[in-house]
Structures are given as structure tokens and as C-alpha cells.
């Protein structure tokens, strides 16, 4: 087995805080360019899992590997998009300067930044809003800004923690399609946490369901739906409907 092939590999990962077991025996492999969705009820440890892959948390036992190398601390090759964009963006920096942040951290010369920043802002549809502060943008626009900032890192792995959980249904669908378009351009590996079964099926190549108390992998299914996906035809696809029913039944069984 060539472990280095995997973008993300979790080996028997467990985490406990004191006597409180959060996650136990998680085994998971994500190939480069794969879009994996992790679903589970709140408290199933899905966000915790994402934080371990990001290097913000260290497992109590087991190993987290990125491209075959153990994760010890956050890496620039991994970008995170949080659900709470209001807290994750820097309120004192305009949209432009927020996108500039990872470029400054990465040491990109100041002369090269403007073109890159404008390109990214245009890509997420914020080309006309570069001078606005996050507080002056709508929720959907703030989340676009956070996505642009994450892409500025040029990550090969993108971790998204319920990124659209706080947005209205229309905005959510638009952003789902934009994320699909953006990551397919760069063949980015995506680890996408959500509690929405339909969202997971619509976006993912694979869906992993977590069982709670303690969190563990309950089910891991491939989603063989054609790409590019479409909000109407994909969601009406017989396979989509079949998988949706299957996932609902699984989740009901888990939480029964």
C-alpha cells in the first residue's frame, strides 16, 4: 500500500478530553482531488476531526497523515473555511486586505499581491467590493470572502467546516456550485463537514457518516453521480434519490 498517495490518511485516530471520549478508531483515506463529505449529528466529533487534520488539535492516539507526512502543526498547504465567517475574517481589514493576509504570511512580494488578490476577489464575485469591510458585507458575501482568502493560500487540501450552515437556501446553492467550480479548476482535495445529507450527496465524491458518543465511522459510500453537478438535474437523478433515501435510513438507524 502506498500511503503517500493519500492526500489525507487517518489511522486509528482517537481523541479524548480527560475521561470524555470524543472520537474513537477513525480510519479514513482521501485521495488527492477527492471531494469527501463528512456528515453526522452535532456532537459526533466531525468538527473535531477537521481540526485534527488542520493541525489545530493532536489526537490522543493514532496518526493523521497528509501526503504521507504526520501532521504536527498547521501547514500552509491546508486551508480552512470556518462556518462562523464573522469571527474568522479580520473586521479591521477591508475585503482586499483580508485576502492579502495569507499572501503576507507566505512572504509574497508586495508588488505581486494586487493582481493575485483582484483575481481571487473576481473569482468569488466580489470584484466590486474590495474596499468594503466584512461588517458591510452580507453573510453570503462574507463567506465568499473567506473562501477567496482560503484559496489565496493555494492549498492542496481545503477543509470546510459547515461553511454554508448559517446561510439561506438560495445563497447556499449558489455557493455550493461556486465551490465545486473553484476546486475542480485546481483539483483541490476537499474535506467538507456538514449535517445536511442532500448537501453532502450533491457535493461529494464520497460521503462518510459519523456515529456519535464516541464519534466513529458508521458508513462510507461512494457517490457515482456525474459531474459537473447541477442543482436541478443532479438532485432529480434517480441515483441521487436512491442514495438520499439510503442515507436517511442510515442516519435514522444511527440515531435511533
Amino acid at each position, binding site marked *: 500500500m502506498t500511503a503517500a498517495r493519500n492526500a489525507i490518511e487517518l489511522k486509528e485516530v482517537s481523541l479524548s478530553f480527560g475521561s470524555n471520549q470524543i472520537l474513537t478508531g477513525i480510519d479514513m483515506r482521501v485521495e488527492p482531488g477527492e471531494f469527501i463529505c463528512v456528515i453526522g449529528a452535532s456532537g459526533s466529533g466531525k468538527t473535531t476531526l477537521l481540526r485534527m487534520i488542520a493541525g489545530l488539535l493532536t489526537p490522543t492516539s493514532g496518526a493523521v497523515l497528509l501526503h504521507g507526512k504526520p501532521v504536527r502543526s498547521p501547514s500552509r498547504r491546508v486551508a480552512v473555511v470556518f462556518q462562523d465567517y464573522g469571527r474568522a475574517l479580520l473586521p479591521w481589514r477591508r475585503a482586499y486586505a483580508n485576502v492579502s*493576509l495569507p499572501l503576507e504570511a507566505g512572504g509574497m512580494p508586495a508588488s505581486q499581491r494586487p493582481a493575485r488578490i483582484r483575481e481571487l476577489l473576481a473569482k468569488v464575485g466580489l470584484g466590486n467590493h474590495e474596499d468594503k469591510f466584512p*461588517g*458591510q458585507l452580507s453573510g453570503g458575501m462574507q463567506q465568499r470572502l473567506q473562501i477567496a482568502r482560503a484559496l489565496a493560500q493555494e492549498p492542496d487540501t481545503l477543509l470546510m467546516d459547515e461553511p454554508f450552515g448559517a446561510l439561506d437556501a438560495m445563497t447556499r446553492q449558489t455557493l455550493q456550485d461556486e465551490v465545486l467550480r473553484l476546486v475542480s479548476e485546481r483539483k483541490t482535495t476537499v474535506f467538507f463537514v456538514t449535517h445536511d445529507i442532500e448537501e453532502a450527496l450533491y457535493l461529494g465524491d464520497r460521503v462518510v457518516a459519523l456515529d456519535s458518543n464516541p464519534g466513529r465511522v458508521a458508513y462510507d459510500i461512494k457517490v457515482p453521480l456525474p459531474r459537473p453537478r447541477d442543482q436541478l438535474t443532479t438532485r432529480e437523478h434517480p441515483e441521487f434519490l436512491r442514495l438520499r433515501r439510503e442515507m436517511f435510513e442510515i442516519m435514522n438507524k444511527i440515531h435511533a
Partner: protein
Amino acid sequence: MTAALARSWRGWLFPVAVLAAAELWFAFNPILSDTLAPPSKIARDGLAMLFDGSLLKATGQTLVSAAAGLLIGMVAGTAAGFAIGLIRTAERTAAWVVELLRPIPSVALIPLALLTFGYGYRMEYSVVSWATFWPFLILTHNALRQIDVRLIEVSRLMGFGPLKRIWKIMLPAAAPRLFTALRLSVGLALVVAVTVEIAANPQGLGLGLMRSQEELQPGRMLAYLIWLGVLGWAINYFLLLFEIRLFAHRTPHGGSTAP
């Protein structure tokens, strides 16, 4: 603001009535007082001091000392606040020293400052810097604790080193609270500077107050007092304007919270 003051004309009613009553009272009871003077006399004395330049000179001396002391206290207090806020061992080491030194009233240092520096600006701003050091230390420490952990995570994820993290994330995140420390300390700096001048240092507005008292000039003394009130109010007013300008955009749909 002036429009707001004009609208709240009721607020002016009472002070104007008091002034008029005082003027009338003095007109019918022409006494010679060591402590009081009719408002018209205060105004005349104040204007005289303004035109002969003595008021502005004294104001300059007091403000320069207060500002220099404030600047030293701000830089040192903020730096120390960052040290104890970021380094666990520094926090533990400093805890006792802070608890022991902080309760020393700043004006109690006047004799020491006088012995060390003699009369002049240095002794005055050293006492002011001591007084303003503490609010900056405490509030910086406090501000750092209140920075959203999410922002610290973001800076770790981006790969900022410790210095850049302080400069690009922590300092701006703490800025609104640091500004509160500044506003508190500006008032304090003025109080301490004038106190030092009254107690020991022969310059500035404090000296003016003392001289007018010694020369039995209540009109001039009260003019100094009123001038100090105006000065304190004006400084605070402009700081508030500045604060709103700096931080209004941080609140959702900012920029609309004009004074």
C-alpha cells in the same frame, strides 16, 4: 455636536441661571472674598491671562508634560501588557510585583522624582508615566485575553510567526480596548500633571492655580479651574471622534454611528 448642544437648551438653563444669580448676589453684596469672585470678574481675569500669553504658556507646559508622560506610560505599559499577556512565566513572575507596586499612589512619587530629576519637565512626566503605565498594563493584558480564539487559529493556520502574529492580528484585534486605556489615561495624565505642579513643580497650570491662591486672586484661580474643565472636555471630545472614526467599521454596517 454643536447642533445637539443647541437643541438641548434645557441643559443650559441651570448653569446660566446659577451664573446670573451669582452675578446678582455679588452686585448687591460687594464683599471682598479670598475664595469667590463674580462671574464677570472671572471672565475678565481669564481673558487678561489669555491675551498676555500666560495662560497659553502654562497650558503648553502642562500639556507637554502630560503628553510626554502619557506616551512613555503607553509604550511601556502596552509592551509590558503584551509580555505578561503572551508569556506565561512573565505573567507569573510579574503578578506579585504588579500587586505591590500598583497601589503606590503616583503623587507619592513626587519627592523621589524631585530628588532624582530636580524641577522641570522630567520630574513631571516621570510621575505621569508611572500613573498611566498601570491602566495600559492592565487593559492590554485584559484585551489580549479577550481576543477571539478563532483569530488566533486563523493566524496559526496562515503560518504567521510570533512577531507578525502580534503585529498583524493581536495588536489590531486589541486596538479598541487599547484605545479605551488611552482615553482613561489621558484624563489621568492631566490630573497627575496638574497635581505635580501644585505640589512641587513650579510650572504650568498647577503653578498658576497656586500663585493666584497665594496672591489672593480668586478670579484668576477660578478662571484656571474653568479652563482646566474646558481643556479636559475638549481632549476627550476629540478622542471620542477619533475613536468612532477608527473603529466604526467594525460594527456591522459600520460608518453610520456618527456622533
